[in-house]
C-alpha cells in the first residue's frame, strides 16, 4: 500500500516526515550513493527516481524502526542493484582489487627496519591554516577527490559523513560488517587525505 488514491505525492508523509522534506534532505546524497552502484550519472538519476516511486508505494510499510535515511538508502541500493542486473554488465568499478591499496603505502618504514612501523615520509603540515581562509577551495578539491575514490569507499563516506548514519546503519545499507567498514573507511579517509596533501604541496 502506498499513497492513498488521489493523494498528491507532495502531501505524502513517511514516518511522520513530509515527502518533500525527505526529497530536500536526501535526494542529492541518494544520487551520489546510487552513482557508486551504477555506471553513469544519468543511470544514477534514473535509479533515484525509481527509488522515490518505490518509497511512495511502500510508504505505509515504513514502521519507523530504523532511521528513515537507512530505509531510503536501502531502497536506493536495492533499486540500483536491480538496475545493474538489467544492464547485466560487469563494470570495472565492481572489481574489488582496486579497494586494496593502502593509501599510506611507502610512507612507513617496513617491519625489520630499525625504525620499522614509524614514518619514513612523515606528514609535514595540517591542511587548514588557523584562519581557515582556504577552506572553501579545499572543500571543492575534496568533492572532486571523492569522485575519484573506489565506489565502496565512496558509499561509506556518503552514508557516514554526508547523510550522518551511524556505523550500524551504514553497515546495514551498504551490507558490510564492522571490520570491512572500518577497513573501507580507513582507506577512504586515507585516499582523501592523500588528495589534500597533494593539493597542499602544489
Amino acid at each position, binding site marked *: 500500500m502506498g499513497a492513498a488514491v488521489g493523494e498528491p505525492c507532495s502531501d505524502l508523509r513517511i514516518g511522520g516526515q513530509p515527502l518533500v522534506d525527505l526529497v530536500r534532505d536526501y535526494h542529492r546524497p541518494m544520487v551520489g550513493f546510487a552513482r557508486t552502484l551504477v555506471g553513469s550519472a544519468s543511470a544514477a538519476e534514473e535509479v533515484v527516481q525509481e527509488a522515490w516511486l518505490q518509497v511512495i508505494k511502500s510508504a505505509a510499510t515504513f514502521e519507523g524502526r530504523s532511521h528513515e535515511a537507512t530505509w531510503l538508502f536501502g531502497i536506493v541500493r536495492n533499486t540500483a542493484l536491480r538496475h545493474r542486473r538489467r544492464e547485466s554488465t560487469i563494470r570495472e568499478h565492481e572489481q574489488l582489487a582496486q579497494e586494496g591499496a593502502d593509501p599510506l603505502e611507502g610512507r612507513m618504514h617496513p617491519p625489520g627496519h630499525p625504525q620499522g612501523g614509524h614514518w619514513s615520509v612523515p606528514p609535514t603540515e595540517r591542511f587548514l591554516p588557523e584562519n*581557515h581562509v582556504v577552506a572553501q577551495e579545499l572543500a571543492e578539491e575534496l568533492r572532486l577527490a571523492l569522485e575519484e575514490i573506489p565506489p565502496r569507499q565512496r558509499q561509506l563516506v556518503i552514508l557516514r559523513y554526508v547523510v550522518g548514519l551511524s556505523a550500524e546503519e551504514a553497515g546495514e545499507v551498504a551490507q558490510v560488517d564492522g571490520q570491512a567498514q572500518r577497513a573501507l573507511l580507513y582507506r577512504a579517509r586515507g585516499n582523501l587525505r592523500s588528495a589534500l596533501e597533494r593539493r597542499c604541496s602544489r
Partner: protein
Amino acid sequence: MTGPNWLNGNVDAASIDCTDFVVLVDELLEAFPQEGGPIVTRHLNECPPCVIYLQQMQDLRILLNLAFRDEKLDDTSVERVVSAITTLEEGFSDVR
C-alpha cells in the same frame, strides 16, 4: 588491514607505533575507547608527525562538512523532483 595490536588487548603502551596510530585515528575521531586514551596520548607526546597526521584527519572532517553542507535541495529543485516523481507515478498508474 588488521586492527592495531592494543585493540586485541594484549599489548602495552610501548608497542604502539605510527602504523598502529594511523589506524587508531579513526577510533579517536569517533568515540574513542577509554582504555586507548593514555596509550595514544603517550604516542602523540613522542611523535610530532602523528600529531600532524591527527590534525590533518581533523581538518578532513571539517572539510567534508564544508564540502557537503549545500547538499540540501532548494525549494525549486524539490518541486521539480516531486513533479517528476508524480508524473512517473501517474504514468505507472495509467499502465495499471
